[in-house]
């Protein structure tokens, strides 16, 4: 590999990080809200896929990509509320229910989405932040989608809101000690219902990005498990929205490594690099685990079985 090849791989990885990270970012921010309230929603993979389908279908039918984003958010919110509502019934386990809803969301999306595989939908706009450069690679890498910027702002906002707003503190209290929350007169189930709903909205929007920008079409293989990896990413980011942003960029960059190597002509073994995000997930979880220590920052109510 020569000098230019190395640079172009680096630029492609940066561009890929920006392009690929957005669904990770939205799903992990949504999951952070849900887990901070003391519940795990593993169904966000299904929500993501259904969000992608509903956004694409809406954009095809109305001609507006933003209408698609709105519908995807609403649909995601419904999935979240459904999860939250079923979880408050007695003897329901949130993890098992999440897996069921993951399959349900994907299945429902495939069922309704059959008709929308062929037609093409309007795409979400991107800002060309690379026009200062003469290099076409740099220009391509710095095509930044509006949703990415929204996600970045949202992670900053959530980080601030968890410390400085009443709503943020209530969510943290409910997630850390349900008994304390009840003693203060908060309705634990209601807070968790709304937190799971909010998480669903964000996951749905993450799905809209998949089908309306990158890769920018609707098909049944549109998500390669981003929804599930984002849940692991929340643990990696220690339930901190700002760290979620960094982690999403890291995973996005790792995901772009395979295609970038292929584009500069590395023809042997490049497909191994497609596995980079998954290897990274495993490596990160092993590296941050300990047999003797509890995870710092984990909400106290998380994973409590009923």
């Amino acid at each position, binding site marked *: 590999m020569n000098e230019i090849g190395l640079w172009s791989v680096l630029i492609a990885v940066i561009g890929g990080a920006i392009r690929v990270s957005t669904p990770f970012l939205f799903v992990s921010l949504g999951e952070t809200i849900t887990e901070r309230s003391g519940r795990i929603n593993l169904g966000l993979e299904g929500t993501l896929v259904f969000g992608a389908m509903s956004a694409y279908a809406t954009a095809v039918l109305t001609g507006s990509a933003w209408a698609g984003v709105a519908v995807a958010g609403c649909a995601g919110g419904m999935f979240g509320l459904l999860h939250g509502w079923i979880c408050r019934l007695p003897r329901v386990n949130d993890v098992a229910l999440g897996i069921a809803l993951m399959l349900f969301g994907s299945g429902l999306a495939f069922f309704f989405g059959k008709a929308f595989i062929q037609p093409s939908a309007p795409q979400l706009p991107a800002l060309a932040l690379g026009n200062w450069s003469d290099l076409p690679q740099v220009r391509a890498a710095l095509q930044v989608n509006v949703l990415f910027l929204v996600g970045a702002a949202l992670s900053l906002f959530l980080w601030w809101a968890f410390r400085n707003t009443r709503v943020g503190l*209530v969510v943290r*209290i409910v997630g850390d000690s349900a008994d304390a929350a009840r003693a203060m007169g908060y309705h634990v189930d209601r807070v968790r219902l709304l937190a799971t709903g909010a998480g669903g909205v964000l996951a749905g929007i993450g799905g809209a990005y998949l089908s309306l920008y990158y890769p920018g079409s609707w098909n049944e293989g549109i998500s390669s498990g981003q929804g599930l990896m984002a849940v692991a990413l929340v643990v990696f980011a220690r339930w901190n929205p700002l760290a979620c942003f960094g982690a999403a960029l890291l995973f996005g960059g790792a995901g772009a490594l395979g295609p970038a190597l292929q584009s500069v002509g590395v023809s042997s073994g490049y497909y191994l690099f497609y596995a980079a995000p998954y290897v990274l997930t495993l490596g990160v979880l092993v590296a941050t685990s300990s047999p003797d220590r509890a995870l710092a920052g984990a909400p106290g109510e998380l994973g409590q079985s009923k």
Partner: protein
Amino acid sequence: MPPETPPGAIAVETIGMTKRFGAFAALDDVSMKIEAGGFHALLGENGAGKSTLVKCIMGFYAPSSGSVLVAGREVAITNPKGAQGRGLGMVYQHFTLVPSLTGLENLVVARPDVPAVIDWRGERAALAAFMERMPFRLNLDRPVAELAAGEKQKLEIIKQLYLEARFLILDEPTSVLTPDEAGEVLGLLRAMADRGEISVLMISHKFREVEAFARSVSVLRRGRLVGGGRVGELSRDDMAAMMMGARPVRVVADRTGTPDTARDVLRIAGLRASDASGLRRIAVEGLTVHAREIVGVAGVSGNGQKELADVLGGQIRAEGGQVRVGGEAYDGRRAQSRAQRVRFIPEEPLRNACAPRMSVTENLAFRAFDRRGEGASRAGSPAGRPTFWLDGSAMRRRAKDLIARFGVKTASSEAPIATLSGGNVQRAVLARELTDPVDLLIVANPCFGLDFSAVAEIRTRIMAARNAGAAVLLISEDLDEILELSDRIVVMSDGRIVYEVSGAQADAQAIGRHMAGHH
């Protein structure tokens, strides 16, 4: 909005308070009055209905019948928030602070009128001014999870005063405090009551505290109000008689023989460990327990005793140092505890020593279910040969025998052990741990939350094991228990052993000073 009453202490009265759970009356027609500015103690055994009564006052439970008068007016309190709005506040036995939030965040968020966006700088200034008027100093910027139990308790009380509680209920407030701390906290609250700022209702077991700080007392037994009066007019014997009713109380078995100082059963050297959060570290330089000796480990909760017990029980790993039992290395493995005859009775036995949903029979078999004995009498004893197939009938025989010998009250030997009362769970665990020959017995808070008669019986069993030649390490937060049982006493403070004294020369005041870290 609740009706406004003038500032200062308020009186609370219950009239005919009754609470039934099914056919069982936890509270039966209790009428009592706490004057404005009073300091009233509520005495009673476990299960006498003390907690039920205060939970009915606070709106946690809806009483089956009866009513509550606040400042002379009948009020309907349906939830704790309503009680708070009327100036009633309660400090619970378990903490209601949120562990990951700082003291400051905990206080502000407990207010009924938390603003949507919180101005931390303004809140901090307002709280600093408020803390000037408070009886104790606290660091409000640390997460509650990092505070010691005594500090948490003080923060709970501060929180109620911050919420402008004018009638304060304390549920066994001193169980996690040193004698000196308890005296300080209760003395300051008593002074506030005397100035007419608050009224106090305190649930307690401790006669000494009741006599020193309360002005009046009520005694509950089996849900009924059986007596009361002004402190000073009632003797300790009067109060004990009201609490217990007519019933024989077993005395602890006599100590026979002296410690066999030639035989070191447990020897700890340079032990280092830390708990799961990594915040509490212990460093035990040297500790030896001889045969036929009870060594009591005293300390305020959260000073490393739990971590010491967890290392010896194999629940956390030591980072350094040595634990030797009978001369051999020991790190809590099953084969070692079998070979070196170590038995372990952890605190909260239902959680730490039982599988709650498995039956009493199965729980009793945990030490020996994979062993087959020779002959009927040794069936299922830990000394037997290893076996792959379980011998159900031997397990059931053994369970029936142990249930009868230790007086475990259970509906059936096949009932899940979680359905037993706390005392009976502890009896079952003792039965499992003490029937086979024991060289070393490690016990942590064995009588926590148990009633009078169960306590006497369990202490008798521990003493009997010692008399038979076992070395006993007794880790307890109950200083009276330590003083009663121990041949030798050590005090842990901040993860270290800071004091050692023989049981005969022990002085509660000196021990208390070392528990508090003044040495």
